[in-house]
């Protein structure tokens, strides 16, 4: 059965691989082409650092959205990173292997729940609780942080577990044999050796949090303002694009593309940090 021959197969596979890369390139070019001219025409600092977003009057300052995105992401990290890393440490160093075999795939399953479902739970369960116990509208920065914190857990836990398991067993044995307790071994040897992988897991979680759209739109309230407390209603960069894209025209539409450019650059930076950290882990051994 030689329909294509070795060379034919090679060409087809190459075409497939390049189509993935060219899709990325096309998207990047398209966003930059639509967004960059606007940014320069409107002024970089006007666009990034003024707080008036009133498309009808031709005012396009995205500073409130930038601040909201930063706060939502930081808040999500403060919830997701410690929980995720602690969970990974428990599963790798303390739990019996059988428990790990059951729990790890379960956690990874969390990643496949559609974000609209997270948002739905946030609206129906979380927002009323926040409204009741902390005050404010409920749909808020805090709700966004909690929902995103849970959404990044699978990323943080599963990559942290992989990097902790990649630490040679002999390091642990060497430390335990010298009379170290499990916890001493974990934080003096294992975590140090796995550090770059754990950092990568957190940075990838960060990327996921900053790029998340649907769940944030549903739970964060979406009013354009610079949050002064965790109970304020906020609108993130992603939410801004998604909410207004359907009716935007002209300058307004270009301003939304420009918002996309900002997001795109932030996420590229985060991903390169993560991949540098992961590469460091591999050369380490």
């Amino acid at each position: 059965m030689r329909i294509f021959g070795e060379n034919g197969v090679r060409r087809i596979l190459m075409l497939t691989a390049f189509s993935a890369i060219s899709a990325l390139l096309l998207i990047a070019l398209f966003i930059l082409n639509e967004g960059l001219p606007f940014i320069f025409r409107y002024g970089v600092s006007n666009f990034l650092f003024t707080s008036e977003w009133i498309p009808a009057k031709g005012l396009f300052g995205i500073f409130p959205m930038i601040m909201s995105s930063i706060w939502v992401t930081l808040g999500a990290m403060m919830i997701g990173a410690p929980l995720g890393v602690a969970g990974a440490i428990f599963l790798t160093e303390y739990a019996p292997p059988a428990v790990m075999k059951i729990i790890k795939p379960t956690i990874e399953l969390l990643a496949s729940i559609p974000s609209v479902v997270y948002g739905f739970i946030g609206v129906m369960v979380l927002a009323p609780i926040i409204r009741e116990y902390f005050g404010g509208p409920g749909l808020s920065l805090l709700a966004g942080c909690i929902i995103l914190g849970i959404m990044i857990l699978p990323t943080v836990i599963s990559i942290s577990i992989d990097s902790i398991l990649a630490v040679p067993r002999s390091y642990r044995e060497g430390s335990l044999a010298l009379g170290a307790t499990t916890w001493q071994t974990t934080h003096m040897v294992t975590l140090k050796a796995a550090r770059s992988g754990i950092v990568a897991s957190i940075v990838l979680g960060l990327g996921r949090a900053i790029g998340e759209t649907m769940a944030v739109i549903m739970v964060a309230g979406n009013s354009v303002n610079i949050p002064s407390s965790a109970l304020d209603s906020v609108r993130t960069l992603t939410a801004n694009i998604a909410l207004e894209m359907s009716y935007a025209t002209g300058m307004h539409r270009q301003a939304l593309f420009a918002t996309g450019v900002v997001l795109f650059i932030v996420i590229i930076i985060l991903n390169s940090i993560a991949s540098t950290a992961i590469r460091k882990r591999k050369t380490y051994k």
Partner: protein
Amino acid sequence: MANKIEIENFSVYWNAERYLNSISLEVKMNEILGIIGPSGSGKTTFLRSINRMNELETGFKHEGLLSMDGNDIYSPDTDVVLLRKKIGIVFAMPVPLPMSIYENVVYGVRLSGIRNKQKLDELVERSLTEAYLWNEVKDRLNISGLRLSGGQQQRLCLARVLAMEPEVILLDEPTSGLDPISTAKIEDALNELKSKYTIILVTNNTKQAARVADRTGFFLMGDLIEIGDTRKVFTSPVKKETDDYITGRFG
């Protein structure tokens, strides 16, 4: 000489499969006990039973008695962390921890709460000297232990055990991956160390046991075939299997 470690009818099972069959022997104070035998004969399992390293893996079960200074090592009251401080082990594969030479040596001692810099410095020099490594590394104590050669790494692993001032040192084929010069250095170190420590040396190299061990035990398929003074085991062994193994006619 008094017995440091006493072992009676000690058996080990991994997932219900038997790896050691009812071993009985004593280790005398300040002797080097050599353990020889082909791969898979249970030497390492035996050694790692003594400081309870085996139980770090799942499926480990044991029977019988293993005691040091008359205290049951497997008693539920035994503090395993303390036990491992008293019984140091050097593994077959030299694995320094991913930190500097200095930090490797003081690692265990720091955990026991010694923080005094001068005391640690003295300890590093003494342990590395005892392990025949000091002259080679004294000018670069801050480089990573992982950058040393295999032979140096193994002596570093010995030094970090010595720094703990244990009572017993277990060596699991410590020279199996080393060149003859590094091997000789480790053997020299052992000969000097036995005045202070009780040493159990598992080795694949029968000549090494003949060179350094006071007494030698021969393991085969999880059984202790024979144990006695090294000279006697090597010159006039009682069992035919022992004779076959040490003369290389095995198999």
